[in-house]
């Protein structure tokens, strides 16, 4: 564990630096709070309601998907470390391929249901036809000169 000693030392120095900066700022800076200063900053508009407490469900989806991929990555690291030493790399590769494919199938399912689509809604649902007999083809044919003659 001695290899971590310098990290601990750096942690102490960094935390001390941050703490001392706050203390210095507390000593040097003025402190004259007013209502306007301590109100939430909204570019001059007086805030009249609490900030939202709910978020679009997509953010939660991203978080869950991240956990799945992060776990996959956690399994990947030991795999990557021993890959060159092992006696049977083919077995390791097939194993990881199976695992990655399983995760990937779930990922593709999610994508195909639009779980990660954030964009502006690009497409409107096609309108239902007014009568089944009236299609775009019949409409187009009616206004063509030849079709008009036939109709007359």
């Amino acid at each position, binding site marked *: 564990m001695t*290899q971590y000693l310098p990290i601990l030392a750096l942690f102490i120095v960094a935390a001390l630096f941050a703490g001392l900066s*706050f203390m210095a700022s507390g000593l040097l800076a003025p402190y004259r709070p007013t209502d306007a200063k301590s109100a*939430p900053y909204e570019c001059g508009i007086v805030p009249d309601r609490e900030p939202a407490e709910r978020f679009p469900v997509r953010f939660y989806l991203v978080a869950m998907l991240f956990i799945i991929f992060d776990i996959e990555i956690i399994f990947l690291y030991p795999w*990557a*470390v021993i890959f060159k030493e092992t006696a049977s790399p083919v077995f390791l590769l097939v194993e990881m391929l199976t695992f990655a494919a399983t995760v990937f199938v779930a990922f593709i399912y999610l994508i195909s*249901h639009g779980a990660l689509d954030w964009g502006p*809604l690009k497409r409107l649902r096609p309108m239902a036809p007014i009568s089944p007999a009236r299609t775009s083809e019949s409409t187009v044919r009616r206004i063509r000169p030849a079709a008009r003659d036939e109709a007359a």
Partner: protein
Amino acid sequence: MFLASAGDPLFVDGINFAVALAVIIKVVLAFAFLLVSVLMMIWFERKIISDMQNRVGPDRAGPWGILQSLADGTKLFFKEDLLPDRADKRIFRLAPYLSAVPAFLSFAIVPIGGTITFGHYTTELQVADPPIGILFLLAMSAVAVYGVMLAGWSSGSKYPLLGSVRASAQMVSYEAALGLAVAAVVLYTGDLSTRAIVTGQEGLLRHILPSWNVFRLGFVPFFVFLIASTAELNRPPFDLVEAEQELVGGFHTEYSSIRFALFFLAEFMNTITMSAIVVTLFLGGPDGPGFHFLRWLWPILWFLGKTLVLLFVQVWLRGTLPRLRYDQLMDLGWKVLIPGSLVWLLILGGMLISFKWGLIVLGISVLFGAALIRARSLGAQRVGEVGS
């Protein structure tokens, strides 16, 4: 070739006074180096950006305005530290620590040179060389998400909240791509220690190119890591977290004075660390030709030079590219970078066994890639229909 990471040879005889002193000297030097380089980086960025935009930039404080960041930092100490009414005060005070301390710590694993000997002690020119190495970096960047998330959450204000929710979704998305790109490096090195990763890249590849990971791994993990780390840092063109036109200042809107300064410091320190990590993982770290005199100096110069080039690239990206839209950001992260780097990693694994296995994995990947493209168009259709 298996490179066992023995760790820093400084600790082979256990800890005594001289070793403790060496640790303290290294830590204080690294700390000072980080602070000074952040000040220089802020000046460098402002100067380059102003050159790109036909402006003069800072030119009053010191020669070429080099002391501008120092003046700004000093000014922030004298500014009033506001605490919003609606803020969750304890978490509001905690968040800058959570952002700044990991920023300092993640630099600890970067090897900035070879080894140095004093007396009968030998030490590596890096703050620490733990066996988990690069995982430590990923852990620290995961902790940094909490700093950003809690800062916005505890402000009790609309824009910081939106900014922090965006930020955490963005940072976790790109962390997956980041981890997959690093896994490719680990696959070729067989070790997690950053020192082993750097020594594994010495030598020549086919007698022409340096045997750096950027060439050995076929560019893809390098570019995935570069893009993902830019997004992880919330730097342009991925700075949706603090998109001024939409969110005022993003997650740190309510922060002022030295608390704001710590967020700013952490952001630039992370930029420097990430550039140094790209150099370590993909560009051979301190590897490069040296001369016989001052043997210890050349690796450090190589490391600093490469890092400077990458820092310039970061500034260049900021000066050139427009900000992404949120859906473009998520599409790039989830539907391009993550599947791409995962597939590339598995192909690399196949290629390590034999060319035939590489082709087999490539074939399977093409099938899955086709399925992914189909799934994308299906998904876009469904969302469009539901939304109307």
